[in-house]
């Protein structure tokens, strides 16, 4: 389901790949198998940042919590799905959702610059990369 990922040996990807797998696991259990192609979570990458997007339809920003401490990103969400007053249930496929998860961001993400936006039921978390450190060349002096 991570259609934007290409096979690569770039170690930069490893951290977010782990992150993505964890997020994937969160949603996989709550989703009917027949609809496994649904893309609840995607990760993409630009030069400057990793972009993580997760679907939380029907939630308001107040239903979501996001915090970063010690390189750990904590995401919490809850949604109730009560029948409206005066209605009885004919079909129920949308599930109440409540989750609390933590993700290790690894060393590549600039945690001070993380931003999040919520629009049309989709949470977009922007995880900017730290400036790359140039490998330092050490010259060997002749004795």
């Amino acid at each position, binding site marked *: 389901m991570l259609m934007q990922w290409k096979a690569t040996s770039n170690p930069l990807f490893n951290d977010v790949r782990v992150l993505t797998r964890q997020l994937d696991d969160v949603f996989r259990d709550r989703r009917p198998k*027949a609809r496994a192609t649904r893309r*609840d979570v995607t990760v993409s990458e630009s030069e400057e940042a990793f972009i993580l997007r997760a679907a939380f339809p*029907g939630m308001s920003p107040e239903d979501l919590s996001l915090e970063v401490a010690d390189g750990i990103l904590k995401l919490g969400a809850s949604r109730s799905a009560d029948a409206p007053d005066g*209605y009885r249930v*004919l079909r129920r496929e949308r599930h109440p959702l409540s989750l609390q998860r933590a993700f290790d961001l690894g060393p590549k993400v600039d945690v001070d610059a993380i931003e999040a936006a919520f629009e*049309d039921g989709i949470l977009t978390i922007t995880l900017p990369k730290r400036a790359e450190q140039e490998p330092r060349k050490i010259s060997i002096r002749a004795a």
Partner: protein
Amino acid sequence: MSEHDETTTQPQSTELPRVTARVDVFESDDHYLVRADVPGVAKDHVDIRFHDGRLSFEGTAESELIYARTVGFGDDVDPDAIEATLERGVLQLQLGKVAAKKPRRIAIGA
């Protein structure tokens, strides 16, 4: 409707993956209520139709995929009494029942 406008300008949009939208369906004495998860779908990218007792909708999410679903009802839906709202990725459709089909209390004369 906007779906078709977009198709003319972006032929590749017809190739978007289609996903079955999850729905809750409720019923009251006067209405049916359908709620569908369509995260990423904006108001002007939804196409809703009602024909022969079947409610169908398609919503395009950020030019990436299409949420679609058809829900069948009995013959008690008034096609002129269907209202739709879209908020935070949830499409809500309220379908009024035909007045004559409502349960009617019949008084027993003395």
